[in-house]
């Protein structure tokens, strides 16, 4: 009886914790993105609401909540409603096996990495549903691009993760970090995989220069053209949480997760996560969007062969040793 009560309490705490992480992260990252974008373009970014404009996102969020949700008359309403939810829920769940320190983890899974990868795939399903459901040509084009893109990046992405799994010998995210405690950060063993992983997560999170699904200047807003109010902000929330998740996985796989001197574990983890997030913003405000065919050629002709070669090389060296 007591055990069930504890486990229920633990689950509730877990949900509360993840919700807090998702919410606070979204507020902070949107602010950071606007600040970084501003300063990279000789502007200041938000300055008015709260200290240094920190509460700007809260104000924008309130505005979005109070707005009317518009349903296009020709939309497939159930799919239209389902799409943002399918985008958001998997990233929510995928945060469960992510460890923020040796002890701070919602739930330890021995296949944590596989779960995260599998749930990450659902994001594209959400985008596809959004594009299909709202019966809009731009949205459908954006969605079809997202599907073409997932084929181009997901295989190299997995091929970049595999050498790390070979080195660590486990799928558990916590064990992978512990394995780096004994040796070094895997980024030092696997610089090529690390680098390619960075490119692949930029594609995975639909960020510029690979933001084809949105492509404001070509497709109006791509898959979320028809979404307004809170449903639109759900997509936004999903995107920023997805960035957070991808950065967390990157820091766990390659930069030793919570490992670091002096500061406590969670602080190191967050520092590394926001380092990756900053890197993605840096990419976004530096590089123009590439063409779709360039992206596909890049994925299939450069990312795939090199990551495959890297994986085979790692496997060969490990077998020889």
């Amino acid at each position: 009886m007591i055990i069930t009560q504890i486990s229920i309490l633990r689950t509730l705490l877990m949900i509360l914790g993840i919700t807090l992480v998702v919410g606070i992260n979204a507020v902070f990252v949107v602010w950071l993105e606007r600040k970084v974008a501003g300063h990279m373009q000789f502007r200041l970014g938000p300055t008015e609401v709260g200290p240094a404009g920190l509460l700007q996102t809260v104000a924008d969020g309130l505005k979005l909540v109070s707005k009317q949700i518009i349903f296009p008359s020709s939309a497939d309403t159930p799919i239209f409603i389902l799409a943002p939810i399918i985008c958001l829920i998997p990233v929510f769940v995928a945060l469960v096996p992510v460890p923020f320190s040796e002890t701070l983890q919602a739930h330890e899974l021995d296949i944590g990495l596989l779960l995260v990868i599998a749930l990450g795939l659902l994001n594209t399903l959400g985008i596809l549903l959004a594009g299909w459901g709202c019966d809009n040509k731009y949205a459908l084009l954006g969605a079809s691009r997202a599907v073409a893109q997932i084929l181009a990046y997901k295989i190299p992405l997995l091929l970049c993760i595999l050498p790390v799994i070979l080195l660590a010998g486990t799928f558990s995210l916590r064990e992978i970090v512990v394995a780096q405690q004994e040796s070094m950060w895997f980024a030092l063993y696997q610089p090529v995989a690390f680098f390619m992983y960075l490119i692949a997560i930029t594609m995975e999170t639909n960020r510029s220069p690979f933001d084809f699904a949105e492509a404001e200047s070509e497709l109006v807003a791509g898959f979320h053209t028809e979404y307004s109010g809170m449903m639109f902000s759900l997509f936004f929330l999903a995107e920023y949480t997805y960035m957070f998740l991808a950065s967390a996985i990157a820091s766990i796989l390659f930069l030793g997760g919570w490992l670091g001197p002096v500061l406590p574990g969670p602080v190191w983890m967050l520092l590394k996560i926001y380092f990756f997030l900053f890197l993605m913003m840096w990419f976004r405000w530096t590089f123009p969007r590439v063409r779709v065919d360039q992206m596909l050629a890049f994925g299939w002709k450069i990312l795939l062969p090199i990551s495959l070669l890297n994986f085979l090389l790692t496997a060969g060296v490990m077998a020889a040793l």
Partner: protein
Amino acid sequence: MNWSYAKNIVTGLVSLVQGMQVTITTMLSPSPTVEWPRETASLPARFRGHIMLVADGSTGFARCIACGSCVRACPSNCIEVRGEKPEGAKKKSPTLFQLDFTKCSLCGLCVESCPVEALAYSRDYALAGAERKVYSSMDLLAGLGTPFSEQCHEF
């Protein structure tokens, strides 16, 4: 793997890094934004705002002698001056000095033609008014002392 394939990747990477260098140096350099109205930008020394009348140091009245040379010099016909001699004075003083700033092209001929240097450029750039009248008939005598008694002054 052929040579141009590898070369392509390397040159592409170098150019990407160069691009990122540009944005990060921009980000770390101070922003040129001046947050008006909390701060104001420093105006150039020769900034030309609308013209204004210069007050005489000792009396506080306008230096203007209402000779009308600025009215004649103005190519846009936007200055209107009327003057009278105050009792016991040798020179005229303006009773009305009105500028139609909506017509003014800020050429500065009035300032140059003034024989007593009674005109100058103001440094007021934050102009805003609720009515057209505010700028189509600006009373440049406002705020200056006058040698006339109240009855004599037209306003």
